[in-house]
């Protein structure tokens, strides 16, 4: 078996046990990238020289029998909206095409403290705005399961590299489903933790009250391992929660007897693909078979999540993206007459259509005279949705819903119609609105052999429960063992 195809847990162990050298692992992954990347186009930047340099240092330490951390020597990919010191961080935008941060995001520091090696930065929708990675200014990433289809988005690159064994794990960010939906499309595990569990310091903001960093992995156990490394309070992010450190690997137990799984029957309606529906029903059966109780619940306001999301997210984005003005860094238009013209042209040329659409939407909903009707109202609905979930979790341990209503679509199929694209996030967005943790794991394949994802949601900071249930489901199905033929 090739090294690159191992799980994060297994490769970390092999390195630690000195069964393989870190260089061998890197060689294996980079040669896999050389082979597959031309077809998939998932990386924006590769960082071989830094990676090999780091590998050598780590190997020396290991040879001296020093501790190199729980991810010692393991190659990991990073979504290109997470700042890496000295390595370009583009947000897949022309605006930041040549932008190199002068500092590391907190998650990068944590990963490196645990011994991980960053091997490259992955493609994404521009500024994480999109559900297919098609809005990237840099390149088009293909779904490893079918190169004519999108990998999902916005963290499409991260999902694709894990799915095609071009990394053992990757970081993504999830504002409205940007980790879970591509995980579903590419048949990998995608975890969106509770808002506040992981520091956002160094994550280039799209919508600050919704953004959350999370891991893509090949298994649920690997997700727990990643969470152990990247979670925790950060004094640089006052919205990060100050809680006692938890060992998430302890939740990796194949047993859900007595656990109550909530099924929101009023939320899962007809707009759903037949194969996805079948996979979902089958998932319910699987859980029943391993001893979970199934409980019908109501999420009556969840259907307003998308409307709420497109007001709050765009409002915050319109403010967060104001700083890209061509003055200090990033893209600057060549010919301009005066200051206003410099702003106007730099932003016109530097941003893509979807980003502009959202900046305009957000600017509109915040403008005086409209604020009460849109932004304020959206905040009120947000409170109702949070209450809805609170009530639901009085009845169940975890809520089960599909990750997305459809499987991966073809290039261009939805990019002409933003509304249709937005609807792909219908099952993922409520989780961000409520700040909850959720995980998407492989849950089957449609008639065209495209992956289907199943999503578990838990109450705030109940990642342990979430991982336990997801792990049990995973261990009692075989979907995760399937790999794309590439």
């Amino acid at each position: 078996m090739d090294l690159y195809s191992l799980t994060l847990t297994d490769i970390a162990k092999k390195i630690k046990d000195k069964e393989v050298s870190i260089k061998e692992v890197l060689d294996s992954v980079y040669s896999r990238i050389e082979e597959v990347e031309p077809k998939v186009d998932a990386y924006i930047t590769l960082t071989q020289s830094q990676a090999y340099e780091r590998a050598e240092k780590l190997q020396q330490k290991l040879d001296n029998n020093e501790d190199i951390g729980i991810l010692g020597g393991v190659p990991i990919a990073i979504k290109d909206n997470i700042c890496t010191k000295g390595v370009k961080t583009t947000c897949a935008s022309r605006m930041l095409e040549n932008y190199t941060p002068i500092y590391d995001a907190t998650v990068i520091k944590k990963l490196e403290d645990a011994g991980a090696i960053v091997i490259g930065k992955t493609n994404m929708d521009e500024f994480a705005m999109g559900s297919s990675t098609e809005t990237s200014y840099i390149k088009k990433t293909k779904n490893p399961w079918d190169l004519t289809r999108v990998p999902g988005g916005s963290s499409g690159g991260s999902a694709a590299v894990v799915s095609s064994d071009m990394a053992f794990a990757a970081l993504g960010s999830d504002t409205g489903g940007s980790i879970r939906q591509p995980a579903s499309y590419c048949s990998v595990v995608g975890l969106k933790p509770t808002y506040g569990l992981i520091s956002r310091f160094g994550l280039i903001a799209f919508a600050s009250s919704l953004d959350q960093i999370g891991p893509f992995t090949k298994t649920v156990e690997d997700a727990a391992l990643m969470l152990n490394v990247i979670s925790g309070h950060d004094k640089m992010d006052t919205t990060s929660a100050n809680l006692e450190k938890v060992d998430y690997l302890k939740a990796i137990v194949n047993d859900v007897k007595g656990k109550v799984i909530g099924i929101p029957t009023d939320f899962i309606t007809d707009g759903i693909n037949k194969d996805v529906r079948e996979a979902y029903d089958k998932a319910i059966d699987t859980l029943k078979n391993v001893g979970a109780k199934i409980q019908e619940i109501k999420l009556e306001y969840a259907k307003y999540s998308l409307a709420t999301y497109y007001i709050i997210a765009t409002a915050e984005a319109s403010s967060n993206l104001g700083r890209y003005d061509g003055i200090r860094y990033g893209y600057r238009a060549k010919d301009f007459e005066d200051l206003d013209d410099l702003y106007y042209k730099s932003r016109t040329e530097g941003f893509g259509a979807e980003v502009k659409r959202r900046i305009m939407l957000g600017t509109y909903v915040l403008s005086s005279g409209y604020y009460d009707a849109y932004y304020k109202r959206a905040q009120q609905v947000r409170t109702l949705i949070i209450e809805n979930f609170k009530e639901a979790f009085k009845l169940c341990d975890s809520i089960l819903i599909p990750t997305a209503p459809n499987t991966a679509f073809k290039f261009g199929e939805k990019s002409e119609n933003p509304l249709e694209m937005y609807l792909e996030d219908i099952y993922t967005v409520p989780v961000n609105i409520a700040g909850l943790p959720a995980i998407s794991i492989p849950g089957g394949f449609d008639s065209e052999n495209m992956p289907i994802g199943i999503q578990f949601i838990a109450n705030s900071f109940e990642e342990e429960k979430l991982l336990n249930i997801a792990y049990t489901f995973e261990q009692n199905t075989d979907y995760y063992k399937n790999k794309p033929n590439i």
Partner: protein
Amino acid sequence: MNDYEVIIGLEVHAELSTNTKIYCNCTTEFGADPNTHCCPICTGMPGTLPVLNEKVVEYAVKAGLAMNCEISRFSKQDRKNYFYPDLPKAYQISQYDLPLCEHGNIEITVGKDKEKYKKNIGITRIHIEEDAGKLIHDAFTGDTLVDLNRCAVPLIEIVSEPDIRSADEAVAYMQTLKSILEYLEVCDCKMQEGSLRCDVNLSVRKRGQKEFGTRTETKNLNSFRAIYNSIEFEIKRQIEVLENGGKIIQETRRFDDVKNIGYAMRTKENADDYRYFPEPDLAPIVLSEEYIEKIKNALPEMPHIKKERYMSKYGLPEYDAEQLTASKYVAKFFEEANDICNNPKAVSNWIMSDLFRLLNENEIEITSCKITSENLAKLILLIDKGTISSKIAKQIFEEMFENGKNPEDIVKEKGMTQISDENAIKEMVEKVVSNNPQSVTDYKAGKDRALGFLVGQIMKETKGKANPQIVNKMLIEILNK
């Protein structure tokens, strides 16, 4: 002009004297090389997040308590969005609908002597916010350069009610604010460095008219003179416009301090839409009763209390007590000097006459004055002991102001010790009398002026060192023989 009533409200920005900026650890020190006091956070680099400096909240609460405000137990920060090159995030973190302090008031004293009156000015709100950077225009190249050192230096904005009715009241209000902020040690109040500055909102209306007239806002005034002159200018301008049948346009204005004229910057017809919304990167500010109580108990003695104490304890007249306590630094200087020489009236006189005159002439603050409180006390002791005359003391004082020397050393170096030896003086008196027979005759004929002339001659001989009381006594004795 008297047909019109003037309505003024002030928005004062005070830079807080915290060591570090409001959302990062950069120093707030003034005057460094451009762009050396900044980091990824205060320059708004992608991915960075603000972390609120707790000192900022403490200082703002102090100011709020000193100005009799209600302190919000729950307040939040908001984003004020606009594009400008000195604002690297394209939004300023400020407070919109839930400021830290609200509904306060301060008492001001306006005018002098008989025209003096007291008045309460309402404080609408005090909120915290971050400062912007600075643009520097290069006249030679035509380039505009950005210095981000001042970015995210903490500010409080103090908004008054429209209770002010004249330029004099506005200046008195500003002086009182300055004095309070200095006493609290929350702002260094260096107006020339821009750490205390104000915007003036002004409108006029016919007396008896109920509704306010259209107002204009004159921005960024950073001296008492500029505040006074800009208000006088704007009152005159608005009345002229109205008298000529015109309309006041709501607009933002600037005032040229040198040319003494105001001019319009931009009209507010398309009112700026700052699209305020709650800052999602910062948690709400929640203050406990204990926290507020603790700050309240630690407030220093405020100027009006100190003034009362100076009057009762030192027996100083109200005017003197007010002048001495207006600035915390002057009061400190006074108290330190008096602790040594125990002569409050003399210390007060020296400060109010000679020291204030020299500070004014040289345009320096008492904090950077070379005369120390200790040396002033020594000077007063030299007079009190009769070592020097008060006339000589004035010369010494000037020299102390120049070089900061100890008065005892100056006296020694220049041999300025007063001559009080009666025999020595008698000798001189006799010499002068015999050299000026005409004056002696005049004196005896009842011309008192002759006595003054003779004293003057003696002082000239002794270079002013003779003890004037003894000279007088001796002279009369000899003349009357």
